[in-house]
């Protein structure tokens, strides 16, 4: 965990945001992330994010579920405790398919939810820095990671010229930390002071 310097630009229109993202990338800046109040179609492509591998994980979990169900049921019903049920063969595959199916779905679903939480770093008490409180309300917030050589004034001017309503420089934690917002620095703190 390290503190890093970021330049934050806020936009209020998707139609302005998209060309800005493109220009920032062409200019060679590294976009840390873009925070939006809702899912914006095509933004992942514009930012050049790679396809998620969540579905590959889902496939593997599903196969694991199928294999678990098939191996355990077949072991139980043919080796461990064979029972005669309605004169059916011990290896009664059709009767097991619903259970295999259910376990496939269960493994895939639970596994994918947990993987999703892991990939997005979501868990109770896991906190991340909020670059701008209005990202949860009505602003599209673009966060650019600075290097030693970044001239923040130039970058802020560049963002403003591309339609950013508001720009600022922030030094913030780039990873997650465990804690509570009421104990840590509040994202709304500054605003409340202004209002008072």
């Amino acid at each position, binding site marked *: 965990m390290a503190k890093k310097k970021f330049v934050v630009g806020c936009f209020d229109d998707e139609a302005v945001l998209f060309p800005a993202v493109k220009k920032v990338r062409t200019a060679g800046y590294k976009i840390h992330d873009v925070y939006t109040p809702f899912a914006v179609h*095509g933004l992942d492509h514009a930012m050049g994010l790679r396809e998620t591998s969540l579905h590959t994980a889902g496939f593997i979990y599903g196969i694991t579920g199928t294999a678990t169900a098939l191996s355990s049921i077949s072991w139980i019903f043919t080796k461990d405790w064979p029972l005669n049920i309605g004169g*059916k063969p011990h290896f009664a595959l059709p009767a097991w398919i*619903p259970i295999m199916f259910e376990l496939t779905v269960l493994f895939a679903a639970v596994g994918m939810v947990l993987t999703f939480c892991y990939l997005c770093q979501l868990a109770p008490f896991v906190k991340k820095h909020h670059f701008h409180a209005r990202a949860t309300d009505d602003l599209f917030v673009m966060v650019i990671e600075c290097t030693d050589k970044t001239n923040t004034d130039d970058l802020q001017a560049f963002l403003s010229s591309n339609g950013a309503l508001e720009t600022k420089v922030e030094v913030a934690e780039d990873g997650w930390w465990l804690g509570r917002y009421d104990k840590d620095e509040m994202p709304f703190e500054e605003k409340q002071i202004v209002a008072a």
Partner: protein
Amino acid sequence: MASLRTQFEVPGKMKTWSYALIGLGLAALLYGMFTKGFSSDEHEQVHFWGTLMYNTIFWTLICNASMFFISVTTLAQAGFTQTFRRIPEAISTLVPIFGAITFAVLLYIVFGHKHHIYHWLDTEAVAADPILKGKAGFLNPTFFVIWTTLTIALWSFLGWRIRKLNDEADAGPMDRETSEKFIHRGTVRTAMFTVWFGLTVGSTVPWLWMMSIDAHWYSTMYSWYTFASSFVAGMSLIALWVIYLKNKGYLELTSQEHLHDIGKFMFAFSIFWTYLWFSQYMLIWYANIPEETVYFKHRTQGAYKGIFFFNLIVNFLCPLLILMKRSAKRNYTLVTFMAVLIIFGHWIDFYQMVMGSLMKEHVSLGWLDFGILAFFVGAMILFVGTALSKKPLIAKYHPYLKESVIHQV
């Protein structure tokens, strides 16, 4: 918009191919008709009329599936279909044509008193049989003819009304009020089609046309199974035409995004088909009651074993494993391959549904089946191509067109 190629012209090569296939099919049909259809041997007759029956029903249903696709997407207010909607529309124009052929074949079977195909036509047998007597209210020539007539006529008529309404979107720009009204009228018309579709394909018609071959046996799942089979093949047919037209440089506004959605339909309904296949099979396998297992006896243990499991591989395992990946559904070559495979697979499925009950002892798949298949493929290409060339490929002023153009999966 001005540079779009919206006027399809039937290429000479396509005409040649379709005429060749139709010619081949007619030759097989005529040869079959004189050697088998009018032969004095009951067995040969059953072979010929059964083959004709499953082919006509299959092709009518998969063309009708196109209109069902239009209807459900309209009812769901799905915009993405607009850039290629004229294709399912063109395919659905075949319903009256193929429907008339089906009607003629079925009527010949009923009035020609082919009780080796429909056992319930045999009045003496029905009178002596308490099970068939109990079904006589449903399985009798009068009801059969009335219901079949209504079915095909209403499919054609309600479908025609939906296509006709969409022609208004060619005429000129609509203001807000007109387009709202247009969407509402479309919703009403497609709802009517969907209801009739549910009453026919979704329930009665597969029982009446195909399940009644095994007059004693029944499965409530059968109609859904038939619907799933015909719908997934119908989606594949739409995919093939979309890809063909894209290849020829039409449909500039249709992209991989739309193909992806069609691919999803093919994938999802293959799984749905398997779900029904398995539900029907497992319940009967589990209960193990002789009057129910009779349907599967010769299919899983007799002559049809190979076809029966081949069916499962082609229609379930292949779509499941090949179409699962996102990149596969966006790949034109792979979708083309899978569409052909799925159509063929479900044709085989219809084959075993009908012929598996008519000729239990041996598999008759041969020149007659493929000849008649060639006829229908040829006729389909010719008629769909002609229908496509009659209208612009895109209804330019449809209120949802923009939504479709910017569609992204």
